[in-house]
């Protein structure tokens, strides 16, 4: 085997390696041949002393596999942490104080007012029913007046109930918004 054949076989055996590494390795063997030739050895002798080029290539490839330059890092997605329940202590204290002194009294007052309105609407309705009952036991003009009053009160009751339904809905929505705002203060970031 001459140098050319040796180098060709070595190049083939090195094919798993990348270009620059192959070029470097081949240069090492070029140098080895040049050094041997300058000492009067024939290409065939040098090639025989070097050994099997396929075996040499296999050793390079094994070393390259055994020590990968940089193991390719698979982008591992970080374990999906449950929404960080990181409590900001200062905000927590503030929210507690806010609710103690403003939130709870305010919302108690609002809901008490609401309950009062419902009671008012209920009593108007009750009054209308009483007037209807009274009208049954009266005769003539008084009965007519009582019935008209009862109808007026019934209409008023219906109006009040409609208003109260909306008011109740707004109040509950407001309370939910208040809770969310408090939570966003404590946990930070946008509230869910």
């Amino acid at each position, binding site marked *: 085997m001459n140098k050319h054949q040796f180098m060709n076989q070595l190049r083939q055996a090195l094919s798993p390696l990348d270009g620059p590494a192959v070029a470097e390795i081949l240069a090492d063997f070029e140098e080895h041949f040049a050094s041997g030739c*300058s000492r009067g050895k024939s290409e065939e002798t040098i090639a025989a002393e070097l050994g099997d080029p396929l075996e040499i290539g296999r050793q390079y490839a094994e070393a390259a596999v055994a*020590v990968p330059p940089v193991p390719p890092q698979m982008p591992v997605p970080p374990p999906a942490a449950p929404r960080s329940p990181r409590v900001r202590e200062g905000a927590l204290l503030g929210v507690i104080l806010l609710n103690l002194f403003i939130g709870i009294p305010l919302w108690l007052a609002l809901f008490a007012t609401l309950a009062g309105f419902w009671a008012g609407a209920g009593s108007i309705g009750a009054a209308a029913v009483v007037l209807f009952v009274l009208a049954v036991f009266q005769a003539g003009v008084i009965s007519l007046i009582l019935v008209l009053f009862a109808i007026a009160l019934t209409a008023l009751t219906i109006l009040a109930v409609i208003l109260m339904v909306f008011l109740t809905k707004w109040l509950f929505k407001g309370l939910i918004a208040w809770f969310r705002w408090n939570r966003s203060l404590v946990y930070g970031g946008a509230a869910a």
Partner: protein
Amino acid sequence: MCPVDADPARPVRLRTASTLSETIQIADGTIYPILRKLASDGQVTTYLQESSEGPPRKYYTITPAGRQTHQALLAEWRHFIQHVHVITGGDL
């Protein structure tokens, strides 16, 4: 394949591939993959120097880490052959 300078003040001349194969039955080509691995592990550094005859010559310099490894491996080897001597009845 050229001799290795450990450092200029105290050159350690390692055997070349050819001298190695004169001593033990080994193909000259075996040394190159090993040298390349030593370089990639940081045990030796290499540099090229232009040569008046032929391609540039590659020189290998042992690093402090390489020297440490060398000492550790030598100690391990001596330890090993001591035990082999004990097992084989102390015959050298």
